[in-house]
């Protein structure tokens, strides 16, 4: 829709262009993902003032042009910043991963206020959290599982994805490597890649899904944590066809990174 617009946005990526311009990938609450050029952004103190940064909530004034995929960012106003994130390397690592995750799992011109609000809640949570890598990871995994839910493909953690038997009544539980969730021994087909899931892993994944109250002891069980990460990664691989660029930095900030996919 050509014309002037104002939206609440998060910056998902920023690339310096030519002498003084910036091209930003933005995620607008009412518009979804789009790219915009900010002319003279590196020189302008009034219109941009160095505010085009990831992990900040901005009010952006921009013009959508009929003959271009690239909108023109006219000015921004920082509505909310997260100094707690910018003041801690591990939080920057987790925040960057979540930002890239959002960039990869959203599509252009698809307004998703639910995902936008989810990302905002994640940044706020990260901003206030203690600098404990395990607690930061809980916030990240919650974000990922919520993303899967909003995108319509959460891994099923409560029952066998084929016969619907509740996981509580199963002696042994498997996870499909394709990332769909839990499957019971009776439903597993020959040749289907599966792995046995520890009960603590399921407990941990459920906590990631709804992190209320005291974290379960499984959070400090490195085997359960590693397995939970692999199950989330398997589901993520349905949406991502490459390893995220921010992943190596994230891995340096994870507690007990173990063997990751």
């Amino acid at each position, binding site marked *: 829709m050509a014309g002037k617009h104002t939206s609440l946005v998060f910056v998902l990526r920023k690339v*310096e262009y030519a002498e003084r311009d910036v091209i930003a990938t933005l995620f607008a609450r009412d518009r979804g993902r789009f790219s915009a050029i900010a002319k003279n952004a590196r020189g302008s103190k009034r219109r941009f003032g160095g505010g085009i940064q990831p992990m900040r909530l901005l009010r952006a004034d921009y013009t959508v042009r009929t003959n271009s995929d690239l909108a023109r960012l006219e000015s921004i106003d920082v509505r909310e910043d997260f*100094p707690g994130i910018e003041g801690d390397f591990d939080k*920057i*690592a987790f925040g960057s991963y979540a930002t890239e995750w959002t960039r990869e799992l959203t599509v252009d011109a698809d307004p998703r206020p639910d995902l936008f609000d989810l990302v905002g809640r994640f940044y706020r949570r990260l901003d206030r959290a203690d600098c404990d890598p395990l607690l930061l990871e809980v916030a990240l995994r919650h974000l990922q599982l919520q993303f899967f839910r909003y995108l319509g493909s959460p891994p099923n953690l409560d029952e066998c994805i084929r016969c619907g038997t509740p996981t509580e009544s199963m002696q042994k539980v498997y996870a499909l490597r394709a990332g769909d969730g839990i499957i019971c021994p009776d439903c597993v087909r020959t040749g289907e890649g599966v792995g046995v899931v520890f009960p603590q892993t399921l407990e941990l994944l459920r906590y990631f899904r709804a992190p209320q109250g005291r974290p379960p002891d499984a959070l400090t069980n490195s085997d359960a944590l590693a397995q939970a990460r692999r199950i989330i990664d398997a589901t993520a691989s349905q949406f991502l066809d490459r390893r995220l660029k921010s992943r*190596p930095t994230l891995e340096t900030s994870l507690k007990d990174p173990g063997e990751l996919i």
Partner: protein
Amino acid sequence: MKSDDPITNLVSAFARLPGIGERTASRLAFYVLNEPDSLADDIAEALMAVKDQVNLCERCCNLTQAETCSICRAPDRDHSTICVVANAQDLRAIENTGEFDGAYHVLHGVISPLEGVGPDDIHMSELLERLQSADANGGTEVQEVIVATSPSVDGEATSLYLSKAIKPLDIRISRIASGVPIGSELEYTDKSTLSRALSERREL
């Protein structure tokens, strides 16, 4: 992949430069083609010279034509204080202030998790070597490191990483101040800058 068509190759070569898209690359290529041969000769010669003669200072990674740069060779500078900058342009900006008489270290980039740039992708290990051994710093032990990266997320990530790596070495580490730019008006200053200016206020 190289084409048999020299014009296509030139356009592709220009398009590899930062900030130059296909259209601009094409305009530059045809400009060079329509100008006298001397322009192409001069450009080619300057490009080759810069690649042949300019290299990184073996101590601070600044750009130089010698083994060590003029700043590292200067006997009247304080080599026990190192100012860490992202690139040679930032070094020049600080030199132009005339306020700093120490040495530098040029990282040639900043840590950028979103772009997949980690500490191993910039000249961080050379800096840590200088801090750990006086020999790697021309015989002078380093007493202080000033981190002068931009106050962006990537600049902060770099500064925080350095702080973590340097703290155990018992070397003083500081970060350049950030806040309201001189000559600007408070009402037009963004929230983040003002918050930081307030939290890092100084006593009068």
